[in-house]
């Protein structure tokens, strides 16, 4: 077997075995369907959700589209705010020392504990959801940016200074690209946070989105729908993270070798 085939086949075989055992256990009555609906039941629900939809005929695709749009909106806003702010904080040790307790503090507040406040501040509409996702992503991205900037090789900045580079240009043309590889991985981690926050953010004030699908299913004791929704979130999270890694390799062609690994 080629190593390439192995990387795919082995996890696939493990997954198939896992599903097989699960199905068998459910079939034998060892697992209660309400707690652990068997994979065959999940497949049926998936088709049902994809074609007829739930609740009120909202299909899985509509839910997923709305959820992804919310996550991306919150994530992109957070990243766009965090990068310039993080570059500034990371570049000035005094500013970094002054703000680091605040950053650690805000980062530690569980995002969903802000849900009641978000509802008061932004109402039950889209804004509160995007705020919650953005909040979760922002602090992660901000710490990642500050860290990335502090790790920029100071000799690059010195080199730029000997070439008459104005400070604003040093931020844009030296620190930003030098920090780019770590910014990209920070953005990936932040996106993961977005996916973790989404179910909570969609709990109130909407029946659209994978998060609300999951909550709505709970009311009807539809464990199968909850699981399909969970699996969808996981699958989209995986897909987007993979796409970001590809984008990263394309945007930062020098990175692979800089870290000392062949491409």
């Amino acid at each position: 077997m080629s190593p390439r085939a192995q990387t795919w086949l082995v996890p696939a075989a493990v997954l198939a075995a896992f599903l097989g055992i699960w199905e068998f256990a459910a079939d034998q009555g060892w697992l209660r369907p309400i707690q652990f609906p068997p994979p065959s039941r999940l497949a049926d629900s998936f088709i049902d959700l994809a074609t007829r939809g739930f609740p009120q005929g909202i299909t899985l695709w509509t839910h997923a589209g709305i959820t992804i749009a919310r996550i991306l909106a919150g994530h992109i806003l957070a990243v766009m705010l965090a990068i310039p702010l993080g570059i500034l904080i990371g570049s000035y040790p005094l500013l970094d020392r002054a703000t680091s307790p605040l950053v650690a503090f805000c980062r530690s507040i569980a995002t969903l504990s802000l849900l009641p406040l978000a509802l008061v501040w932004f109402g039950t509409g889209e804004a509160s959801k995007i705020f919650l996702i953005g909040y979760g992503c922002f602090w992660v991205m901000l710490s990642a940016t500050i860290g990335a900037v502090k790790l920029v090789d100071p000799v690059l900045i010195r080199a730029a200074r000997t070439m008459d580079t104005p400070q604003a240009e040093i931020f844009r043309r030296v620190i930003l690209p030098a920090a780019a590889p770590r910014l990209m991985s920070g953005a990936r981690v932040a996106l993961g946070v977005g996916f973790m926050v989404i179910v909570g953010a969609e709990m109130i004030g909407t029946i659209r989105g994978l998060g609300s699908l999951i909550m709505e299913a709970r009311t009807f004791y539809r464990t199968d729908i909850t699981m399909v929704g969970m699996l969808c979130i996981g699958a989209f999270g995986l897909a987007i993270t993979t796409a970001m890694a590809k984008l990263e390799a394309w945007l930062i062609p020098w990175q692979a070798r800089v870290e000392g690994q062949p491409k």
Partner: protein
Amino acid sequence: MIEISKLSKVFANDSGAPVLGEVDLSIAPNEFVVLLGRSGCGKTTLLNLIAGLETPSGGELRVNGKKVTGPGAGKGMVFQQGALFPWLTAKANIAFAAINRGMKKDAADALALELLALVGLAAAADKYPFELSGGMQQRVAIARALALDPEILLMDEPFGALDEITRNEMQDELLRVWAQRRKTVVFVTHSIWEDLILADRVLVMAPRPGRFVLERRIDLPRPRRRSDPTLVALYDEIWSHLHGGQV
């Protein structure tokens, strides 16, 4: 013209004798001066002070009669590890400096290509630093430092990380470039042969406080041969200063 008088440097977070004592030094236009000394004797610190990357703790530092207040302004620098921007091609690394001077991109690219040709790397214009050998990277770094057409070229152990054969080639290369574009060069090294091959004047440094303990002019024409008896004699003299009890 670089004039240094009673220049000293003490780092805030550093206890003990000053990194640089009160040193005096005057460097003529187009002179090739080499600072030699073992690790930690303050060579980089002195070079950074001249570059304007560090501020003096005391004394005076003037270039062409004007007090040095910051980097840039006619002082190009080549760092030990090249310090090329890894995200830019060789050409773009060199054009970076020219663009800062307000040059249009086309003109900056043309200048970059001209300088790459000067250092013998015309074919590598579109390669990224990671695609270049250490010696090639240093050539790009030299070309980049020349892009602003500085009057003064500061070089901090630029060939220190290269193997000996490449290092010798680079020394020839540097002398060739220097012959074409006369500059005042302040070159730091810890290799005795390197300074004998390159320098108009050698200054041997000793640590804590960083100071000059030996100064020698070398008036031999270039290229020089290592077997030259004058150089051999100088080698021994410098060696004993670096190594013996006279420091």
